[in-house]
């Protein structure tokens, strides 16, 4: 997993709450067996009109947000299906960070596994970022994971909560399976208690 220390990039404001993973990556793209190549299908139905033409009103289709790598969205982002394809699609498209007032639990876990920094700010800060991103596009923001601070060059500055374990895993790009395998002895001991017959094998 790619480590994340600090990142400065253009913000795309997606001013909607309860953005579900069916919107982030619709079901027809879940039949693939690869981890990559989902970026083109990100927000597939929102990026197109019913006729299949690009919808110029949608934030990611606007030239001033074209290079966006930081998505700012409403509360409960990533609700619904557990599909990790949602995190893969956001990363593959080029997003490194999603900022929202809150996230759905499974999405948050999936983001962590893919070096996609999902961070929460207060409602008022998220609203302010959306305003700045709309009014001063292309609007650039810096996310510093080491200090847990989001800031811009025009005086915006807000700290965000993130527990040390999540932060360390993201900073160092740690392999979670490798971390768990440090506890192989504990796993073995647990299995020996539960299934004494397996202990000798």
């Amino acid at each position, binding site marked *: 997993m790619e480590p994340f220390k600090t990142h400065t990039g253009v913000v795309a404001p997606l001013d909607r709450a309860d953005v579900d993973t069916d919107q982030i990556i619709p079901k027809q793209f*879940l039949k693939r067996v690869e981890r990559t190549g989902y970026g083109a299908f990100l927000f597939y139905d929102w990026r197109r009109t019913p006729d299949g033409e690009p919808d110029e009103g949608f934030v990611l289709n606007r030239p001033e947000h074209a290079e966006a790598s930081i998505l700012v969205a409403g509360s409960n982002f990533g609700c619904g299906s557990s599909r990790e394809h949602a995190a893969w699609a956001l990363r593959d498209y080029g997003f490194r960070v999603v900022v929202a007032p809150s996230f759905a639990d499974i999405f948050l876990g999936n983001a962590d596994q893919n070096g996609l920094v999902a961070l929460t700010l207060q409602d008022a800060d998220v609203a302010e970022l959306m305003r700045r991103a709309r009014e001063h596009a292309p609007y650039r923001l810096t996310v510093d994971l080491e200090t847990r601070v989001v800031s811009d060059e025009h005086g915006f500055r807000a700290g965000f909560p993130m527990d040390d374990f999540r932060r360390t895993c993201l900073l160092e790009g740690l392999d979670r399976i490798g971390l768990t395998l440090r506890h192989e002895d504990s796993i073995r001991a647990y299995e020996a208690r539960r299934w004494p017959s397996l202990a000798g094998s």
Partner: protein
Amino acid sequence: MTGPRTLFQKVWDAHLVHSEPGEPDLLYVDLHLLHEVTSPQAFDGLRMVGRRVRRPDLCVATVDHNVPTTDRSLPVLDAVARRQMEVLRRNVEEFGIRIFDVTDERQGIVHVIGPELGLTRPGMIIVCGDSHTSTHGAFGSLAFGIGTSQVEHVLATQTIPQQRPRSMEIRVDGTLPDGVSPKDVILAVIGQIGVSGATGHVIEYTGPAIRRLSMEGRMTICNMSIEAGGRAGMVAPDETTFEYVRGRELGPSDEEFDSLVEEWRSLASDPGSTYDKRAVLNAAELEPQVTWGTNPGMVVPISGRVPSPEEAPDEASRESLERALEYMALSPGTAIGDISLDRVFIGSCTNARIEDLREAASVVRGHRVHDGVHAMVVPGSGQVKKQAESEGLDRIFREAGFEWREAGCSMCLGMNPDTLSPGQRCASTSNRNFEGRQGRGGRTHLVSPSVAAAAAVEGRFVDPRALRD
């Protein structure tokens, strides 16, 4: 000394492999369910670094999301879907995992076959790369959905690191009126607490109305815990649970059953247990429910009306309400009973068990599907289908004009050919009414099996009790 513990705390504590301050707890997984959509990249990850599956004996796979629900002897026409199913077959063979494949009578939706086969038991930790894994919590197990990287993690280690969620009690008092089903209870719960009302929490459903439910009813309720944002939903095991588990094909043997029941009895939350959050509903006040919008919290009683943006408490809710009305092509104030339908779908891991099909059939019996409505029933598993056929339910549906299909997820998410066309309006017993969920531009109303059945007959929403009288 520890104080009183909840069901959730007991199951969590019993599975602790490793715990240290500042890190997530490491939990042992008793049962890992796999399907074709969220597993291929996980197996690939294992192969890339030469890892094995630690406990293939605790894994079970099936194909459900992609499978066509038409004639099983025909080839799968969608080449990408076919390949995904073939990849699962190759993976389970390579790693020695049991599969219930499309030709096996026991194939079905993963959350239907787990309980049905006796794989799901009280007190377990169960995971699956699917958010509706919460279904299995009906047995007093802790069951939750995970992403594909975590699927790989569980395959490799049989454990999962998790931050301990907070706890929430949802108590349902009173008695459910006749004609009001468990689906109506969970839709009303989500309507009350909202689609993120339980985020970060494991829900325990308690109260007399829950106690009186069958296992299938409890599964319907736990299934949609995720639609309230819950990490999982649980019901304490009782005699109803034990009787359901007893004698299942892959369940505990008769010899070990009695001692297991003793253990399972002790799982119930201790008197004096506390929860981080609570909500209470009175079942006696409930009516059949119908969602009108684009998330499951946008729900009203069947006698109600589509709300107006002016009723929204704040600007953000007003915008999402307006957007939902536009997508659903509904005007504020429209009576739910005036909404007419093009399609009816009875199926999904929420409502495709035998009791659901009986409930729907009892409404359909003696009626015909309304002109212009296309209605289908997709049983949750091969065994549900067989049971329904032995009771003659298939004949009731077919004679009324329903299609009677093979088991799978089908039009709940429309990954297989069963989808809505743009603009079509559907009464669906599934769990998500998100934009495009059942097909791009499709409009989904979530309802119980009897409301769906009545909608098929009348071509619009009607209280199913009116048809039975």
